[in-house]
Every structure is written in structure tokens, then in C-alpha cells.
């Protein structure tokens, strides 16, 4: 008898979910149309930064290429022409190539770079139809002059206020976002909201009650 009752209870639960989702679905992100916000420390495609005056920040010191565990970075340095400088140092990167297929997105290159050149952006749609297109060259890696990447990860040990001189605009924004994220984590209310995704109304409370009893 209990078993027969359980059969109907099962049907009732699935029917409730069915009706609820016809009206409104809370889970699904319709990916190509909607996109999720990435957490502020998301580490995706590398982007290379410029100074405010548009000069490239990279001085071709090769530290990033040296530390890269999967040898995804290839750099050829060049003598910086004094009359028409590309970077602010003696040398500049004549070739800067990054292989998105080899990269394991560890972020070591970001940590190693002495000049805050490399940041990891939120560009995660890296799929293409050939392996050649997965190798990014300088044109693609350097952000255009005057443009800031939407989101930039600067390594675990750097914060906006640690940057020497005038902080770049984007890390400040990043810092703000991180603080927001941290606040959200402390606020239990956010988790209350999350709870609603997982359970139907009342189901969660009942579950807790049951757990307390056993």
C-alpha cells in the first residue's frame, strides 16, 4: 500500500517540476544568447598590455617563456629603435606568439612578468576550426592602444594598489569587482537565493528537519 502511494507521490513531484519549468526555468543559461558573468579571477586567453601612451609594455625579457611549463610562449626580442620606440625599454618583442592549445592556463607567465604586461582575460570562446588559428600572434595578443580588456587577472600576489606608479584603470575595476564578490560570499542572503534553485518551496526546510532528527 505504501508502495502504491509512493508511485503517485513520484508522479506528483515530476508534475510539479514540469509545470514550474513550463512557466519559468531558473537554471538554464541559454549560452550563445546569454552569458554568465565570470568570477573576477577567471583565467582565460592571455592579453598583453600597453602603456597609457600606447607603447608596448613588453621588454622581451623572456621570463614568461622561461617559466611556462608547457612552452606555449615564443618570443623573439629586437633592438628598440630610439627614433621610433615600440616599448619603453632597450628591447621590444619583435615576435610574441602564444599557443592557446598548448597553454594550460596556469597563470605562471602572469606572475613571472616583471612589467605587468601579461594579464589573463575573460575571453574563453577559443574554439576554431584549425590548429593554426589557435596560435595567437602579436596583433591579436596586444590590446589596441587606448583599450582596456573587460576583465584582467594580474596574478595571485598583485593587487591594484600594489602597482608602482599610477595604477592602470582596469585593475582598479577588478579590485572593485573582487570586493563585491567577497561581500557577496559573506552575505548569507545570496545563499538563500541559491537554495531556491535546488529545491522546491518547503522541500529544503523539510530536508533540514529530517537531518536534524536522524
Amino acid at each position: 500500500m505504501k508502495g502504491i502511494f509512493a508511485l503517485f507521490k513520484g508522479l506528483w513531484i515530476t508534475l510539479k517540476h514540469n509545470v514550474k519549468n513550463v512557466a519559468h526555468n531558473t537554471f538554464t543559461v541559454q549560452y550563445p544568447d546569454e552569458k554568465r558573468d565570470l568570477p573576477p579571477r577567471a583565467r582565460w586567453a592571455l592579453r598583453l598590455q600597453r602603456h597609457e601612451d600606447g607603447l608596448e609594455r613588453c621588454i622581451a625579457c623572456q621570463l614568461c617563456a622561461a617559466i611556462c611549463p608547457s612552452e606555449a610562449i615564443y618570443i623573439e626580442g629586437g633592438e628598440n629603435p630610439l627614433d621610433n620606440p615600440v616599448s619603453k625599454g632597450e628591447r621590444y618583442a619583435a615576435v610574441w606568439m602564444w599557443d592557446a592549445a598548448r597553454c594550460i592556463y596556469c597563470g605562471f607567465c602572469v606572475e613571472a612578468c616583471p612589467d605587468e604586461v601579461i594579464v589573463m582575460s575573460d575571453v574563453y570562446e577559443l574554439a576554431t576550426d584549425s590548429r593554426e588559428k589557435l596560435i595567437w600572434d602579436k596583433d591579436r595578443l596586444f590590446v589596441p592602444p587606448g583599450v582596456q580588456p573587460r576583465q584582467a587577472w594580474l596574478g595571485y600576489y598583485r593587487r591594484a594598489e600594489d602597482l608602482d606608479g599610477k595604477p592602470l584603470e582596469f585593475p582598479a575595476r577588478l579590485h572593485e569587482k573582487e570586493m563585491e564578490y567577497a561581500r557577496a560570499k559573506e552575505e548569507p542572503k545570496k545563499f538563500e537565493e541559491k537554495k531556491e534553485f535546488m529545491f522546491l518551496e518547503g522541500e529544503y526546510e523539510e530536508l533540514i528537519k529530517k537531518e536534524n532528527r536522524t
Partner: protein
Amino acid sequence: MSGQPLLIFAAKAVGILAVVLTAATYATWAERRVAAWIQDRIGPNKTGPFGLLQPIADVLKLFFKEEIVPAPVDPVLHFITPGIIMVGVIAATALIPFAENLTLADPPVGVLLLLGISALSGYSVILAGMASRTKYSLFGSLRAAAQVISYEIPMALAIASVVLMAGSLSLVDIVKAQSHLPFAITQPVAFIIYLIAVFAETNRAPFDLPEAESELVGGYHTEYSSMRFAWFFAGEYAHVVIASALITTFFLGGWYGPGPDGVWWFAIKTLFFVYFFLWVRWTYPRTRYDQLMKFAWKVLIPLGLLNILITALIKIWG
């Protein structure tokens, strides 16, 4: 046929077939949407409004897929079995009384004919596994053989009590006997037995052991691809639609309903049962094989026999 002009009869036949096959095609769409809703997802919603063009896209895709016929199969059997399932389903369409004047054929032994035809789709499942000559397919058809035979009995018993009540083997007469009260109310036990047996008959979850994906890859249709697979697939959904129509005919009073009678009542009841099929599939887990057999032989068949006995006694003395 009852003396209608041939042309009108042909037009009716084509119309009914078109409606049933369209319903079967859209049952695949409904299955995916309902499954998604029940699992808190959305389901196919990109192809056309509400994803309504999805079945058409699916058929086109299946058309252009490579047809792979494994080396060890029996080529003739492998070729004809997907057809058999459709032949059975389409032949059953002819017997269903959609409305008072919308029946293609009303032979006086309609119920017997129907039972024979529905056994045919069981054949196709059994033959498919034999023709494939691989172990998973063979296991699938072994299960199908036992399952179809076991569940045909309670099904026939349930129908037998309906036939006793109606006093006729003609489907139209059976519906007409329900003009006041549907048999679902006067014969609740037979109704429940039939409802359970029909799930086994159509190989639908929780009794979908012949194709149990998690243990048998795809069961009897493992070795089928492209359009041949599509025939099995379409056959399953057409079978669901036909089975729903038969439940409506036998137990819910066909075209009779509160308010004006007509084919719409038939459509509403049938669609409800199509939904019921999907709903049950996405609610219950698959039964174990011994549970399935035990349930048929130890519960459904004795219950069905008892039900016939009581119905007959009431008929005699009541």
C-alpha cells in the same frame, strides 16, 4: 468501408494516416520537452518557434546520415524488420474509431484483429535482434520475446472483460457501449491492468528492458543506423500514439464526452495519455527483469482472471 465511395475512403485513410504519423513525429518533440521540463531544463527551443521544427530537422539529419550495416547481419531480415514495426502500427490505425463516422474499418472481430496486429510489432523487435547477430541485440530481443508474450496475456484479459461488458468484438460497438459511463469507471481493475500492460507492450519505461540503454547499449536496435534506426524510433512513438488511442477507445469512451461528442474528445483523451506515457517514463526508474516477469505472472494475470470471473458472474446474475 460500409459502401462509401472509394475516393472518399482513400482521402479519409490518407488523412488519418497523416495525422497519426504527424502526432508520432511530434511525440518525439514532446518527449524531449517534457523530459527537459521534468528535469528542470528547457529542451529543444531553437529550431523554429518553441523548437517545433526540431522533428523535421531530426528527420533530415537521419536521412543524410551514413548507413552502417555490420558485416555479420542477416541482410534480408536486417532490411525488412524496421518496416514490420511500422506496418503493425499503421495497420492498427485502420481499426481505431476516431469518431462516429470516422472509422476506416469496423470488422465484427476488430478486437481479435487488433491483438494480432499488436503482436506483429513484437515480432519486429524479436527479428531485429536475431537479424543483427550480436549479443546486445540478441539479449534485447530475448527480453522482448518474454516480455511481449507475458504482457499480452493480462492485456488480452483486460480487453476480454471489456468485451464481456460491451457484448461485442467490434471496436465501434465497444465505444458505443460507453455512451453513458466509460469502462474506466465500471471496470477499474481492467483499466489499471491494461494501462500497466500497455507500457510493456510498447517497450516504454519503466518496462523498456528490450532497449535498456544502460545495460544493452541500445538493445534490439543497437546495430541499426540512419533511416533504419529512424523507422524503429518512429515506430515506437507511433506505437505510443496508437496505444493511447486504444486506451481511449477501450476505457474512456472514445468520442463521447461531457458536452458535445466528437473527434475532439477523442483527440484530447489520446493526447492526455501520450503525455501520461512521457510523464511516467521520466518519473520511474527501469524495473529489474525478474520484477517485470514476476509482476506479470503473479499479479496481473491472476488479477485479470479474477476480474473476468467477477464480470461474467455479474453479467449472468446482475
